[in-house]
């Protein structure tokens, strides 16, 4: 229940504050969002698999987001930013699909 409230509060905050992202962060925010989605879906799967740990969840969330942003940043520095961000998105996308498949099996048994 608190999680749903957190989700709603986040949406409302984003709508109300209308924050302007710092320019330096702007290219990395999409990748970081994809990493955060991956962490959230992974957490849901772990919860359904009764292996959820809030500590691991926080650490994996932070590390996912940080590493995704760092990879794109480094890629930008060495000239392969677009390709590297594509790679990160592909990998995270595969993981999200895999985890969602596991969640589907756990919830619906199909």
């Amino acid at each position: 229940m608190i999680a749903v409230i957190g989700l709603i509060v986040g949406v409302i905050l984003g709508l109300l504050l209308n924050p302007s992202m710092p320019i330096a962060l702007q290219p990395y925010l999409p990748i970081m969002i994809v990493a955060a989605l991956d962490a959230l879906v992974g957490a849901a799967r772990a919860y359904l698999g009764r292996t959820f740990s809030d500590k691991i969840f926080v650490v994996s969330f932070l590390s996912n987001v940080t590493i995704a942003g760092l990879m794109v940043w480094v890629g930008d520095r060495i000239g392969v930013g677009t390709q590297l961000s594509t790679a990160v998105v592909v990998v995270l996308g595969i993981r999200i699909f895999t985890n969602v498949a596991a969640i589907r099996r756990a919830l619906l048994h199909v």
Partner: protein
Amino acid sequence: MWLPSDGPCSMSESGRARHDSSRTTDPAPGSPDAAGPAADAEETAAPQPSVWARIGHDLLHPGIGQLVVAVILCLSTFAVVSQIRSRAEDDPFSGMRRADLVTMLDNLSTSSRQLDSELAELRDTQRELQSGADSQQAARKQAASRLSQLQVLLGTVPVQGPGITLVIKDPDAKVTSDMLLDAVEELRDAGAEAICLNGRVRVVASTWFASGADSVLASGTPISRPITIQAIGDPHSLEEGARFRGGLVSQVESAQSGATVQITQKQQIRIDAVAASAPMSNATPVR
């Protein structure tokens, strides 16, 4: 929430950590690997009443883990919403490739140059036309003022203005054409701009005086007595010019002629007589 409901957390901590880390560190689990945990989940869910019942129970009994998830969800949705809004505010060019942008920029600058040169041409044309119109207008104004001046000088239009009326009463008909010509010349010398004799003859450049059989002729028109001369100009100067010693008045009023001169200054004199201007048939301007 599920930590207390699951029982002692230290017991399953290592197992969870191993499971979770294997999930998160292995980015590309194969389908058998993905099926493994799923099967585990089914197995572990089977002894429980139902996975939905557990979700419902956990929704009603929040714990520290849910708080963490809530905070992270809040952060994530915040980021997503702000990203969506910033994307919505972005211009459509932000997603285009660099080569396309360069081409577009080239096209735009080329057309901008073309439009600039076109604008400069049109400005030049406008300036030319405007100066042409201005000079035409100035020429027209000058021509109009010259025309009115020449019309007054040629006596082709009625004129009005301040001046004097000079009446020569000449009962003995002693006033000759020479005296009349002198009178006209003196009035002109005094600044007369238009002169009219008896209200009938406009004195212009081509006017001539002659002595007729019983009267004076001006341009062929007999001037009956008394002779009235209307002159437009500064009234004071004209009267002084007529009255100076040895001038018109003293000449006319001399003992031999026995005529009298009466001068009236007026602020408004109207001369309606006009001179017919014949076109120049012989004299042409030298350029």
